[in-house]
């Protein structure tokens, strides 16, 4: 930590948050909000005089509330920067100054009650996301009476209690009588590997954390009885199994079985655990002085904010998704952005450090090139066809299109265009060409697809980053589904022009499926919102024309949802089977006759419900 603080090449911005990021690989512009500390971090000498006179006693976040701090405080003695700060919610008030004691005793005069947040602008070529993870809140899974019994605590709190003298001096003391416990139990997988509550995944670190805790206890208190209640002990890492063996050799009892019931002795405040030992098949009761819940981990709330700001993808478990699971596990799907540590998945310290060095190397590879090629998938505007209507400017998620003067044709800022193609899909005048995904290319694919036996085929548009990737994962996972879909890949579902859909129906497609990213996952910020708006309009038009609107399906499927892709494919195939040759012929007739809907068909269509946006989710 000290090395980071004093490195001449590192500018540390603590108590700061990313507000906004614009730009692209090699050229990101970042706005950072540096929150007011009310103490000048460079001038503060951490002399502690301010905290000595502060009359406020507040919850110490860094001790998880097991200790208190003042309103002016330093998070912990080795903090970097080694500077105090004021929590203004705790402070007695500065307007008017109600206390001001700290200011009186501060020798370097580094306290400023009127300090304001500041915005810092940065230009960088690469971004490494290392937003970490969080520990799950055990109060929501209260079968072990964490909120009621004082001697039931989390592994996280245990870490504080056994820390280097912060809270209870050099001894581990149990909360109710401040005595060293004679017996202690650990319950594994609290909030992990549970489909119903907590999280379905394995949190990766809790088994070894408990093994570590028991070793610590046995080294300090050889006579303490230690029990570990578990489903499976996972000691997959280098030297991990040795540690587990040592723990067992030192007398820690590992019991395969998760306690069903926990009670408290009202007098001694001991905790009585009832557990079925599945190795012996017998029910055991253990009276323990303390019980530790080995809680799982989860993505930090802030990671979701960063995900939106940087348009990253997340896996269904909420951790950030890597570009490719095996072959590109450090790069995010967005060029120039890399993932390090537990924001990507739960990891131990070694795993985090390893991935961080990997991320630094991946970033350096880009920085050292000094120039980088960007894909030539950008849009182009024909000034002769452009009417300066401004719709492209409105829909562009990257503000990459501008109209400089009134009535002047729109212009694309090529380096800022990321190639979603929404502008080309929305332009009513055919003035925009999406390079490498042109109308002509896509219409030719529809022609080729529906040239023979169109009635057997589902004309599918899948976005590159989520739906197409989800279908790839279905392949990798060998998940089977009906073979009738023919996929046209576009970079974003926003590229799917209304005319593609009409053309497909005109050529005899029984079903047209448009599949994009879930809203929070859209690789192009919010381009898929335009997809939805467009599809909703087409549904209305289909209804007016007397064509069953549900024959146009809109779905959202992430890169990690292989099973969902299977459901989407099955639902689309079931739908296709309901479309008869006559119905297709009728559609072709309606569409080639212009806009005159057949009265009977119209009445029929009106009687039907609007199509559900997610037909597959009902499976």
């Amino acid at each position, binding site marked *: *930590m000290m090395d980071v603080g004093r490195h001449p090449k590192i500018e540390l911005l603590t108590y700061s948050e*990313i507000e906004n990021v614009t730009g692209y690989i090699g050229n990101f512009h970042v706005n950072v909000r540096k929150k007011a500390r009310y103490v000048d971090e460079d001038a503060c000498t951490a002399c502690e005089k301010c905290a000595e006179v502060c009359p406020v006693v507040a919850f110490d976040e860094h001790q998880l509330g097991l200790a208190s701090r003042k309103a002016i405080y330093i998070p912990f003695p080795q903090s970097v920067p080694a500077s105090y700060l004021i929590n203004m919610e705790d402070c007695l008030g500065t307007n008017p100054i109600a206390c001001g004691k700290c200011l009186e005793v501060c020798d370097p005069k580094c306290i400023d009650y009127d300090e304001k947040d500041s915005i810092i602008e940065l230009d960088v070529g690469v971004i490494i996301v290392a937003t970490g993870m969080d520990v799950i809140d055990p109060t929501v899974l209260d079968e072990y009476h964490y909120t009621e019994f004082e001697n039931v605590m989390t592994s996280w709190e245990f870490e504080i209690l056994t820390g280097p003298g912060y809270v209870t001096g050099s001894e581990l003391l149990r909360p109710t009588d401040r005595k060293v416990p004679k017996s202690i139990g650990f319950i594994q997988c609290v909030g992990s590997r549970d489909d119903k509550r907590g999280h379905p995944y394995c949190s990766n670190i809790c088994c070894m954390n408990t093994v570590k805790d028991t070793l610590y206890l046995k080294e300090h208190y050889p006579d303490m009885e230690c029990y570990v209640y578990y489903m499976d002990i996972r000691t997959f890492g280098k030297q991990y199994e040795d540690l587990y063996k040592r723990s067992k050799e030192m007398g820690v009892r590992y019991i395969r079985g998760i306690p069903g019931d926990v009670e408290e002795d009202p007098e001694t405040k001991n905790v009585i655990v009832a557990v079925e030992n599945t190795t012996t098949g017998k029910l055991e009761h253990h009276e323990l002085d303390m019980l530790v819940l080995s809680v799982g981990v989860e993505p930090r709330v802030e990671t979701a904010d*960063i995900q939106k700001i940087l348009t990253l993808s997340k896996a269904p478990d909420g951790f950030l998704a890597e570009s490719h699971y095996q072959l590109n596990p450090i790069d995010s799907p967005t060029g120039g952005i890399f993932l390090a540590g537990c924001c990507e998945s739960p990891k131990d310290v070694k795993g985090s450090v390893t991935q961080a060095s990997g991320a*630094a190397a991946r970033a350096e590879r880009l920085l050292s090139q000094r120039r980088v090629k960007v*894909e030539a998938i950008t849009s182009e505007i024909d000034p002769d066809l452009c009417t300066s209507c401004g719709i492209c400017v409105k829909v562009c998620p990257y503000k990459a299109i501008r109209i400089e003067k009134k009535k002047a044709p729109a212009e694309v800022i090529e380096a800022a265009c990321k190639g979603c193609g929404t502008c080309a899909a929305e332009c009513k005048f055919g003035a925009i060409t999406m390079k490498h995904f042109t109308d002509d290319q896509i219409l030719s694919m529809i022609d080729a697809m529906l040239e023979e036996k169109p009635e057997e085929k589902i004309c599918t548009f899948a976005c590159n980053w989520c739906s197409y990737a989800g279908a790839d994962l279905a392949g990798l996972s060998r998940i089977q*589904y009906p073979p009738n879909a023919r996929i046209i890949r576009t970079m974003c579902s926003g590229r799917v022009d209304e005319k593609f859909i009409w053309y497909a129906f005109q050529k005899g497609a029984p079903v047209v499926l448009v599949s994009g990213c879930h809203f929070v996952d859209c690789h192009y910020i919010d381009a898929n919102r335009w997809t939805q708006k467009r599809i909703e309009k087409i549904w209305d038009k289909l209804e007016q024309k007397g064509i069953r609107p549900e024959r146009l399906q809109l779905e959202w499927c992430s890169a990690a949802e292989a099973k969902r892709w299977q459901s989407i494919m099955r639902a689309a195939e079931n739908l296709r089977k309901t479309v008869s040759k006559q119905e297709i012929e009728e559609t072709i007739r309606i569409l080639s006759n212009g806009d005159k809907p057949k009265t009977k068909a119209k009445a029929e269509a009106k009687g039907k419900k609007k199509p559900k946006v997610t037909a597959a989710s009902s499976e």
Partner: protein
Amino acid sequence: MVEDERRIGVFVCECGINISATVDCDEVTEYARTLPDVVFSIKNRYTCAEPGQEEIKRFIKEENLNRVVVASCTPRMHEPTFRQCCADAGLNPYLFEMANIREHCSWVHHDRKEATKKAKDTIKLAVARARKLESQEELTVPVTQAALVVGGGIAGMQASLDLADAGYQVYLVEKEPTIGGLMSYINKIFPTMD
């Protein structure tokens, strides 16, 4: 380019048995040759392996190909590989197209007849697109010589130090008043217990 000048080569990959187990690659290769503007088609064991790539380069020259379609796996994996291969043979990388007959076909359908039918269609679509492909020039942009690291936990600190030691300017942004992250709460660390 005038229409009759298009010369498309289709390279069908067996991917060992990953594709050939459910897709009749001979039939597909034959079929590809019947598609408009396709002047050449061939089957490889592994198109992405060096002999496969050498074959692409060779036939671009020998058959004077100006569009290349590889029918193999997902473009999300090997499109950069084959684009580079085309570029090495002097063909603009944007004149390359892929037909995904593995992830979207052989791996998800057991029925050989149906899978072969779908593979043919997938190639037909890819050829239709390839006929309309045009050369593109990629823009090169400068890389700002600085890095942003978001989060000052153990991972953020390590990444910052590595980049800073390599001589790059690093901005480390941390939400809390101190760096350290979860690590700063931990007493001992397994497996070394220090």
